C-alpha cells in the first residue's frame, strides 16, 4: 500500500482549498497573503509529487526531463519570495496611508 501519488494530490488540493478560503474570506491583508502563500505551496507539493512519481516509475527518460517538476517548484519558491516581499511592502505602504489593512475597505478602484 504505502504512499501513492493520489495522497499527495489530495494533500495539495486540500492545502489549495484552505489557501483559497483564506485568500477569499480573510479581511486582513496579511492573512490574504498567507492564504496565497499556502496556495503556492500546494502547487509546489503537487509539482514535486508528479516529478517524484514519474521518476520512481522510471520510464526510461533522461534525468533533465524527469526533474522539470522539481525545478519548477524551486522557481515558484523564488517567485513567491519576491512576491511576498513586494506584497508586504505594499501592505505596509497601504497601512501607512490609510491606517488599515482591511481588504474590504481597500476598494478605491470601483465603478
Amino acid at each position, binding site marked *: 500500500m504505502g504512499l501513492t501519488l493520489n495522497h499527495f494530490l489530495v494533500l495539495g488540493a486540500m492545502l489549495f482549498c484552505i489557501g*483559497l478560503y483564506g485568500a*477569499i474570506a480573510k479581511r486582513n491583508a496579511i492573512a*490574504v497573503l498567507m492564504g496565497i502563500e499556502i496556495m503556492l505551496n500546494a502547487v509546489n507539493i503537487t509539482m514535486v509529487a508528479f516529478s517524484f512519481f514519474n521518476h520512481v516509475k522510471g520510464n526510461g527518460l533522461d534525468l533533465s526531463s524527469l526533474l522539470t517538476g522539481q525545478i519548477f517548484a524551486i522557481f515558484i519558491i523564488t517567485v513567491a519570495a519576491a512576491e511576498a516581499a513586494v506584497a508586504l511592502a505594499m501592505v505596509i505602504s497601504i497601512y501607512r496611508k490609510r491606517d488599515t489593512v482591511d*481588504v*474590504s475597505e*481597500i*476598494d478605491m*478602484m*470601483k465603478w
Partner: protein
Amino acid sequence: MYQYSGLILFAPLLSFVIIVFGTRVWDMLSRPKKVQLTTHDGHGSGEGHEQGAHVGVELAFASVPAVATAATARGAKDATAHAEDQAAAAHGAHLDDHGEDDDEDPKVAHLSQGAVVSGYVGVGIMLLAAVYSWYLLLYSIFVPDQNFLKNGTDVFSYDWLRQVGGAGDYVIAFHIDTLGLAMLVVVTTVSLLVHFYSQGYMEDSAGYARFYAYLALFTFSMLVIVFAQNFLVIFIGWELVGLSSYLLIGFWINKKAKPDEQRPSPSNAAMQAFVTNRVGDVGFIIGIMILFANTGTFDFATLFVKAPHVMSQGLLATAMILVFCGAVGKSAQVPLHVWLPSAMEGPTPVSALIHAATMVAAGVYMVARVFPLFVSAGPVALGTVAWVGAITALFAATIALVQSDFKRVLAFSTISQLGYMFVGLGISGLGNSDLTYGAGPGMFHLFTHAFFKALLFLGAGSVLHSLHHATHKEVQDMRLMGGLGPKMPITAITWLIATLSISGFPFLSGFYSKDTIIGLTAERGQWGLYIITLGTAGLTAFYMLRAFILAFGGTDGKYGGLWGGTYRGVGDPHESPRTMTIPLVLLAIPSIIAGYWFGFFQYLSPKAPIISFTELLTNPLTYIGTAVSLLGLGVAYFMYARLNQEKLHNFVENNAALRTVHRILYNRYYVDEFYNWLIKYGVLGLSHVEQAFDTYIIDGVVNGVARLVTTLGRDIRYTETGRVQSYMIGFFGGVAVLTAVVLVLVTYVAK
C-alpha cells in the same frame, strides 16, 4: 483643303481662350489698383467734409462726369464702399440718359477697353470661320469631289484609350462630310451674326466680355457635335452645349422672376434647361451603351455596317429610341419641351443662337447623323421619331396661338418647327418606297429654318431693345406694342419676310422645306401625319402673322392694318443701331433664297432626287399646303388687323368654351404646373418617405446599438466593486464551473 476645316472647329475655342486669358486679364491688370480719395474742403459746414468726398472711380467711370456726381450725392464714405457704389453710380449715369431702369441686370456706363476688344475678337474670329465654311460649302458644290461627297474627310483623330486586345476603341475623332458641312455653314453664319448683333444688344451690359466668351464656347460646343465622328465625341459636344446654354440662359443672374407674366428668373430657367436635358440624356447614354456593348465601337461608319448584323432589330430599335430620347430633350420635343420657353429669359441673341443653330438643332442633327441606324432599326423607331415630331408640332402650335409674350410665341414656334424636322426625318425612312431621301427633308428644314428663325429672334431682340430704351422697362408683352412698323422699318420689314417664310408663303425658303415634308407624308401614305402637319402649317401662319400685326401693325394702320397704327406702350421707340439692323438684313437674304438650293437632298445623299420646280408647281398637294398657309394668314389678318380688338376680346371672354380653350392654351396645357405637381408630390413625397426611413430605420439602428451599449455598461458596471476578493470569487467560481463542464464532457460525451 477639307482637312483644314478643323481650324473652323477650333476657332471659337481660340476666341474663348483669348477672351478668358487675354483681354479679361488685360482688363483686370489695367484697372487702377487703389481708389484715390481727394477731399474738397471749403463747403464750410461740418458735414461738408463728408459730402465733398469725391470718389475717383476707375478710368472708365472717371470720364463720365455724371458718375462722379452720382457717387458724390450718395456721400461715399470710404474706399471700401467703392464696389457697391460702382453699380449705383452706373445706375445714376443712366438717370441722365433715359430715366430709371427697372431691370436688375447690372449695367455699366462705359465698356472697358478689354470688353470692347473681346467683342472684336469674337466677331473677327467668327467672321474668318464663317467665310471659310462658306468657301468649303461652295467649293464642294461647284467643284464636286466624288470621294468627299461620298465619304467625307477625317479632320483629326486621337486615340484616347485603346482597350487591351483591341476590343472597343475610345477615339476622339473629327470628321467632315456634306451633312456636317451644311450644318457647319448654318452654325458659323448664325453665330457670326449673333456675335455682331450682340455688340448693339449688349452695349451696356456689365458682363460684356464674359458674354462673348460664353458665345464662343457655345459655338465651339456645337461645332464639336457637327464634326463628331463617333458617339463619344458627339456626347462630349452634347454636354458642352448643355453647359454653355446653362451659362447663357442664366446670364442675367440678378434678374428676378416675374410671376404675373409667368416668367421664371433666368437662374431658375437655366437650371430647368439643364435638368430637363439630363432627363433626355439618361436615355441617350443608355442607348449609346447598348450600341457600344453589342458592337464594341462608337464610330458611326462602323456602326452603320456592323450594328444591323450583330443586333436584332428589336434591340436596335430600342437603342435608337433611347438615343432619340436625347434628341427629345435637346430639341425640346414633347414631353421635355418645358425648358425652351423658360430659356427665353436669356439675352435675346442667345435665344437666336439656341433656337436657330446651336442647341435645339443638335438633336435634329444627331438624328440625321445616325439616320442609317434609324433606317436599320425599322419602322418602329422611325415612326416614333415622326409621331413625336408631329405631336410636338401640333401641340406647340396650338399654344403659340394665344401667347401674348413676344418671345414666347417664337419659342413655341421653334418647338413646332423642330417637330416638323423630326417628321421630315422619320417620314423619309417610313413607308414602303425607296429610302433615297436620307436625312434630307429634316435637314433641309433645319437649314432654312435656321436663317428665318435667327432673323425672327434678332428682330424680336431689336424690338425689345428699342422698347427698353423707350420705356426703361423690359417689355415683352405684345399687348404693350403695336404700330411699331413705321418707327422701326428695317426690323419690321425683315420680320415680315421671316414671318412669311416660316408660314410657308410661296417662293420663300420655308415654303420649299416645309412643303417637302408635308408632301412626303402624303406620298408615303401616312395620312395621319399629313393631316397634322398640314393643319399645323395653317396654325403656324396664323400665329406668326398675329404676332407681326400685334407688334408692328394695328387695326388703324396702313395697308389695311398691316403697317403702323396705335402704339399701346409708353415712350417713343425708334430703330435700333446699325450693329443690330445689319444682321437682320443679312439674314433676310437667306430667308428668301435658302429654299432654292434644289440639290440639297442630292448633296446629302448622292442617290436622292433633286427637288423639281415644275413638279412642285404641278403637284396638287403643293396647292393644298399653300392654300392652308394662306388661309391661316388670312384668318390672322382678318382677326387682328380688321376686327375690333375690344369686341373680339369680349366675344372670347363671354363664350365659356372659347374662354376655357383660351385659358388652357394660354397656360400651355398646364404642363409646367403638372411637372411642378409631379415634383412636389411625387419626388418630394418620395423624398419624405426616404427621409423617414433614414430617420427611423437607419438612424434608429445606429442610435439603438449605441443606446443598448450605454444601458448595459451603466447597469453592469456595479459588478466592478473594487474588492480583489470578489474578483477572486468570480475567477475561481468560473474555473470551478469550467471544470465541471469539462468533467461532464469527458465523462459522458467523449465516450
